C-alpha cells in the first residue's frame, strides 16, 4: 500500500498539452500512474501519449463516467491512439495533477474540486498568498487535500506519481517502507539518498511545498501514514519558519501518530528576519526557529538530525531491520 495515490488511482492532468505537462505525463505513465484524461481548453479531441484531452475537467469526468473512455493502454507508443474502452474503464478521475501557471492555479484547483476531485497536486511556484489561503480554505470545506504549490508533488515509487520526480535515480527513489514528507525538492533528494544508503526505501513521498501556505500540512498526512500497513516510519524534511513541525510534535504527543519518526530541519544558523530560501522559511521573533522545532519534536519522542547524513543512522536505530519491498 501507499498513501494518497497508488497504481489504481485514476488521474487527470490539467495543462497536459504544454511542454511540461506532456513531458511529465509521459514519465508519470512510465512509472505506473493510471492517467485517464487530460485537460487543455481548446484542445479537446487531441491525444497526449494516447491520453484523451478535453476542454474542461467536467467534460472529461462526464466522458469517463459514461464509460466512453478506456484506461490508457500502457503498451501504446507516444502519440498513438488508444482504442476507447479497450481496457476496463476506470471511471472518473479521483486525482488531479496540475501543470498550470501560478496565476491560473486557483481557477484550476476550483475546477478540479467542482468536478468532485479530492486529491489535487500543484507544482506551481509563485502562487499569490491570498490565492493560497482561498485554495486551502476551499479544499478543507470540501474534504479535499491539495498538495503544493512550490513542490515536486507526490510519488509512491514503483506505483504512481503525481509530480515531477527523478524516479529513475535509484539511490533516491527506491520502493520501501518509509513515508517521507518535505518542504523542499533538492534537499529531499539529499536526505532520501541518505536513508536509501542505510537500506531503507520510500512508501510514499509527499512534497507539501515551500510556500507559506501549503495546501495540506505535514500533520494532516500523519493519520494516513499511521494507517498504512506498508509504512514503518516517517521522515520529515522541514526547515525554519511556520509551525508545521510543531504540529507534528503535537500529533505525536496526542498519540495520533505512533510510528518511528525522524526529522531533519534546515536553517538552524539562518539569520533572523531575513528571507533566505523558501518564502515560507522566515523567522520573526522567537516563533519558527529550528531550535524551537527541535525542542518540540524531541519532547514528543521524535529524533531530530542536525545534518542530512545523520537521518539514515537515526532511522536505523529505530527500525533496525526494515522490511524490503520488491
Amino acid at each position, binding site marked *: 500500500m501507499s498513501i494518497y495515490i497508488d497504481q489504481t488511482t485514476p488521474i487527470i492532468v490539467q495543462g497536459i498539452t504544454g511542454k511540461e505537462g506532456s513531458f511529465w505525463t509521459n514519465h508519470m505513465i512510465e512509472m505506473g500512474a493510471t492517467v485517464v484524461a487530460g485537460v487543455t481548453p481548446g484542445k479537446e479531441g487531441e491525444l497526449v501519449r494516447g491520453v484523451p484531452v478535453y476542454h474542461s475537467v467536467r467534460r472529461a469526468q462526464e466522458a469517463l463516467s459514461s464509460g466512453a473512455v478506456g484506461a490508457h493502454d500502457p503498451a501504446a507508443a507516444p502519440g498513438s491512439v488508444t482504442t476507447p474502452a479497450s481496457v476496463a474503464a476506470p471511471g472518473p478521475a479521483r486525482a488531479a495533477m496540475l501543470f498550470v501557471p501560478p496565476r491560473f492555479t486557483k481557477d484550476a484547483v476550483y475546477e478540479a474540486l467542482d468536478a468532485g476531485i479530492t486529491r489535487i497536486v500543484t507544482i506551481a511556484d509563485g502562487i499569490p498568498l491570498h490565492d493560497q489561503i482561498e485554495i486551502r480554505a476551499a479544499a478543507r470545506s470540501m474534504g479535499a487535500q491539495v498538495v503544493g504549490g512550490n513542490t515536486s508533488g507526490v510519488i509512491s515509487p514503483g506505483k504512481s506519481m503525481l509530480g515531477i520526480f527523478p524516479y529513475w535515480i535509484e539511490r533516491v527513489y527506491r520502493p520501501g517502507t518509509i513515508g517521507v514528507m518535505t518542504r523542499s525538492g*533538492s534537499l529531499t533528494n539529499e536526505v532520501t539518498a541518505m536513508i536509501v544508503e542505510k537500506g531503507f526505501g520510500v512508501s510514499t513521498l509527499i512534497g507539501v511545498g515551500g510556500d507559506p501556505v501549503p495546501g495540506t500540512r505535514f500533520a494532516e498526512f500523519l493519520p494516513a501514514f499511521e494507517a498504512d500497513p506498508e509504512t514503518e516510519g516517517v521522515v520529515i524534511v522541514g526547515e525554519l519558519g511556520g509551525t508545521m513541525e510543531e504540529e507534528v510534535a503535537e500529533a505525536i504527543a496526542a498519540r495520533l501518530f505512533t510510528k518511528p519518526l525522524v526529522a531533519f530541519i534546515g536553517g538552524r544558523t539562518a539569520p533572523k528576519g531575513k528571507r533566505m530560501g523558501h518564502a515560507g522559511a522566515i523567522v520573526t521573533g522567537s516563533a519558527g526557529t529550528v531550535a524551537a522545532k527541535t525542542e518540540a519534536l524531541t519532547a514528543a519522542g521524535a529524533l531530530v538530525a542536525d545534518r542530512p547524513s545523520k537521518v539514515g543512522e537515526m532511522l536505523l536505530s529505530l527500525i533496525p531491520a526494515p522490511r524490503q519491498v520488491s
Partner: protein
Amino acid sequence: MKLFEFQGKELFAGAGIPVPASRLVRISEPDGTGVPGGIEGVLARVQGASAELAREVPGLRNVVIKAQLDMGGRGKAGLIRVAPVNGTGPDGADSGATGAAGTVAREILDKGYTIPALLIEEAAQIGQELYLSISAEPGNACYVILASAEGGVDIEELARTRPEAIRRVQVDPFRGLQGHQSRGLAYDLGLTGPLVGQFARLVEQLWSVFTQYEAELAEINPVFVTDATGAPGLIAGDAKVIIDDNSLGRLNRAGHGQFQLTREQYDSDAAYESALEGIPYVQFDGDISLMCAGAGLTTTVFDLVNYEGGSVANYLEFGGPNYNKAQRAMELCLKNRSSVILIVTFGTIARADVMAEGVVTAIGNLKPDRPIVTCIRGTGEEEADRTLRTAGLEPLYDTEEAVRRAVALAASAREGVRS
C-alpha cells in the same frame, strides 16, 4: 516587497486612514543615485518642509523626522527624532527653531545608515497608543486581525509577556471582514464613545488595504489616540506593509504600477541585480560564496558551512528556472571578496549536465581568481562528471565532504593572506 513607511502611509491615506500631515525629503532617488545638492541640500529641504508643515498645521510645535529604511527599532537607534518648529500657534514658538529640524536631520544622517529618504511629519498630540495588524494564518486558512490597547511596543515581546493584552479575530477569506468583528475589537480594547466607531472604521480601512494590495502584512503600530481639539481621534503613527511578491504582476496589471523593484530596497548592488534576474541572493560578509540549487539544499549547505567553522559570503540559488544561469550566478559571486565558490546541487529539472556545462563555460569566460568546489548531482550526473573532469575540476558527490573542502580552502586562503 516591504514598503517603506511613507509608501505604506500613501496606501493608508488612499483608503481613508488618517495619517499625519507630512513631507518626504529624498536623499537618494529610487534607483540609488544621490539627489542633486548633496547633504546640505537635503538639510535645507528638511527645514523648508518643517516650515511648510508649521504653516499648514495650526498650533504645530514639533515635527518628527523619521529615517525611511527597512529596519526595526528605528526609535531606539536614534533614527526617529522630534524637532521644534517655528510655530504659528498661540504659544508663538521661537522663530529660530526651524534650524533645529536641519540639525536633527544631520544627526540622523550621521548615524551612518543607508537612508534613502526622510519623512517629516507633524508631531501628533499623543494620548494612548494602540496596535492593529492584519496577516495570514496558514494553518487555519484564514486571515487574522491582532489588536491591542498597549501599542507602540514590540508586539512579539508583548505576545510573550502579556498575551492576554492582544485580541485576535479570524477572518474567513470568503466571508470577508464583518462589522461585528471590527466593532467587537473596539469594545474588547476598552474604547468608548466616538472611538468605538472610529476604530471599527480603521479596521475596515486597513482590511481594504490588506485585500486590495494583497499584503502579507498590514500593520499600524502605534495607532495614536489624539485629543488635540478636545474631540478624540485616531491617527496612524507608523505603517508597515509587506506586499506579496507573487502578486506584484497582478497588481501592476491592475494599474498599481508603483510596486517596482528599485535599488533602494536592497542593501547591495549584487542583491539588487540578482533580484532583477530572479536569482535568490542574500549578502553576508564571510568568505565562502554559495552557488547552490534549491532553497532547502542551499539553506542546509549554509548550516553545514557554519557547523564546520566556515563563514558564508553570499547565499545564491541558481536552481529551478535559473539552472542555465551559471555564468550570471558566478559573476554575482565574484563581486564578493570571497575566497572560495561552493557549488552544491541535486536537481531534477535543473539538470546536472546542464549546470556542469554552464559552470565550465562560466569558468572559461570569467577566469575566476578563486578555487571552485563542485558537488553536482541529479539528472544527467554521469555526463556532468565527464564535463567537470575534462575541465580539470574534481567533482565531489558528498555534500558534507564538499563543505569541508571549501572551509579548508577558505582557511588556507586566510593563512596565505596573513603570511
